[in-house]
């Protein structure tokens, strides 16, 4: 029993440790991404607000927008259907990689199904850049939810 269990556990622990080092996705606010220089090609998440006036939809289905914390802005590019709650001025978390030109190539854009909700990381990122105002905070979602 032990002879069988030990290799499986060892395998699992080995894989997990390896994955923990290389496959964890770090989160950056726009200012943090600017100062810490995320290496191009590394899968990360960028969170902030969709900067008003920056969303450009082109005919080939590409969408350009900026993710901002009102101090720095990260230019982002996304090809695909944006979540239905993606709007200018709203909180957004994008997952993807920076290209060599410093443009964030989003693979996925996560916006909540609930229009009043602001992702926790976005709130933290705004607080970190000193741009969080309680008055600017979206109203706390009432007891309303998905399922």
């Amino acid at each position, binding site marked *: 029993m032990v002879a069988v269990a030990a290799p499986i556990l060892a395998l699992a622990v080995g*894989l997990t440790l390896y994955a923990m080092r290389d496959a964890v996705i770090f989160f950056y606010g726009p200012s943090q991404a600017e100062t810490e220089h995320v290496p191009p090609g590394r899968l990360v998440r960028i969170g902030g607000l969709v900067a008003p006036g920056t969303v450009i939809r082109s005919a080939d289905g590409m969408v350009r927008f900026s993710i901002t914390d009102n101090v720095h802005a990260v230019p982002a590019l996304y090809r*695909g259907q944006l979540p*239905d709650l993606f709007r200018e001025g709203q909180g957004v978390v994008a997952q993807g990689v920076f290209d060599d030109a410093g443009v964030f190539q989003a693979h996925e854009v996560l916006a909540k199904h609930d229009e009043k909700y602001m992702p926790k990381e976005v709130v933290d990122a705004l607080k970190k850049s000193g741009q969080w105002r309680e008055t600017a905070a979206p109203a706390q979602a009432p007891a309303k939810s998905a399922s």
Partner: protein
Amino acid sequence: MIAELGAFALMLALALSAAQAALSAAGRLRHSPALQGAGEGAALGAFIAVLLAFLALMDAFVRSDFSVANVAQNSTTTEALFYKVTGVWGSHEGSVLLWCLVLTGFGGLIVLFGDNLPRGLKALTVMTQGVLAVLFIGYTVFASSPFARLADPPAEGNPLNPILQDPTFAIHPPFLYCGYVGFSVVFSLGVAALIEGKVDAAWARWVRPWALTAWSFLTVGITLGSFWSYYTQGWGGWWFWDPVENASFMPWLAGAALLHSAIVTEKRGILVGWTVFLALVAFSLAMLGAFLVRSGVLTSVHAFAVDPTRGTLLLCILAIAAGSAFSLFAWRASKLTGGGLFAPISREGALVLNNLFLSTACATVLLGTLFPLIRQALTPNDPVSVGPPFYALTFMPLMAITLLLVPFGPMLAWKRGDLLAAAQRLWVAAALAVAGALIVLALARPAQVLSYVGLALGFWLIFGALAELVERTRLFRAPAAESLRRLGGLPRGAWGATLAHLGVGVFVLGACFESTWKLDNSQALTVGQSMTVGAYTLRLDSVTAQDGAGFSADRAAISAFRDGRPVCTLAPERRTYPLAAGQTISKKSICIRGASDLYVGLDDALPGTGDAQAWVVRAYWYPWARFIFIGPILMAFGGLISLSDRRLRFSLPQSAKARVGALKAKATP
């Protein structure tokens, strides 16, 4: 008035559940059938009371009684009746009430169908179920009442989020909850066995049908949720390794392990402690899921109104229930007999291996889900998330090995299996699997090596399951009539297992095909223009304004052609919901082509008017995507067929003759 009756019924249910726990415990202590019977009566009463409360809430939703806060926040007068009804579990309060309904419902089922359980064990099981009901109904009554009134009722309610107004989504919570909460029965049976200090083969035989029921419901629930995500999220994502999804997947994995270990405990009387442990783990993970989903400690793609206070309370419930159960396990597990030795190359050996892999895989998912939390506690300024890359490195390899071993299990005999003989019976299946992958390699454009490994694995599971049928019916070796007779004589349990394993293979094939060969294209089209995706040409025929219940929409008519021949018309919509702050959602349209999907969404209109008006059309080709959902449905169906096996029937008392037969079978295994 009816809402107050509902609130009252809920408090009554709380009292009855407390009585259920107390009377059952007293009945066990004093060996009093009368007290025990009273406890069982209270359990049935608690179910009826929760059902009344549930119906009262449903009534408030159907009548759009906005003086009830929950109704005002989650439904409108203009919604279709279907969404008014399903809106009952659309909110946190309502979904917890549904949880309580299912919990007391399963309590009632133990009372009704548990007649062949030993008296003491049944009393303790009903007692544990009562304690769980007290915890969750108590939480509903004191922290999450769905019946709170508004002093100043609004004229119109706040609509259920439009994206959730979808038939599949609306019906998936009841399935999911029957799965989650169904594991409460095996949890209670486990606790009862630990208190009694006795687990035997018969106990495992009672655990199996309940575990099967819960697991099958959970399978359907997860599949429905995934299917909803697939056709609403726009890009066809059906699994994100999101915390909320993992919350449902972990109990599923633990449940799958439990199903297999219970077989070993039943047939061979070994692995007793482990089976009890898994029974506790499955429901604990379900409760952990409820906490993760509702507390908002993890950022998820899926929105749930989160409430840290309630999260803390749910954590307390989890700590009390799981904490005491595992303490009991630590204290009493050594009492459970039936360690026993077994040969590694045997059916039980294969099932043990299955359990090791499934539970290790479950542990990696748990670790991946909780890791951001643990890390945040250590380095609060450096948030991380754990996504697909992590699971691709941990869960996938473990699961691939597990699946590779699946076809061997049923080929090995109990006690002493012959690996060589099993391999001999399986070489045809292996050859066919490799051939299948090679044929795909020849036909489809090249892709990563891993895709072929996945495809071969999928074919291997399917042909392996079929090989088992061939073996059991002696097809190709005995006359056809003989094979047919044997096929008819196969126990339902064997059919169930074969079908479930086949379903896993179908799922693996679908997942590999979809992720390797999916195509997409998006383009701005004016009316009359065309675009292509894969082998299909799509022509935008018209865009017209349409009004529906609570929304107005732009509906496109798109004709799809293949090789110049029309194959179908698609009608994606862009809906605007004025009541939901003008939220727009895109309603996809899918043209089913065999097992594959041609999937089209309408994006926002680009600036322009008249003939120059263009819309961005997003088209996707998802080859074999249906297999992703058909596979799990086959698994659940396999579970159901196993459930109908005479040997597993938990309701009917066995006839005297059958009982003697069973005893004889046990005496000479």
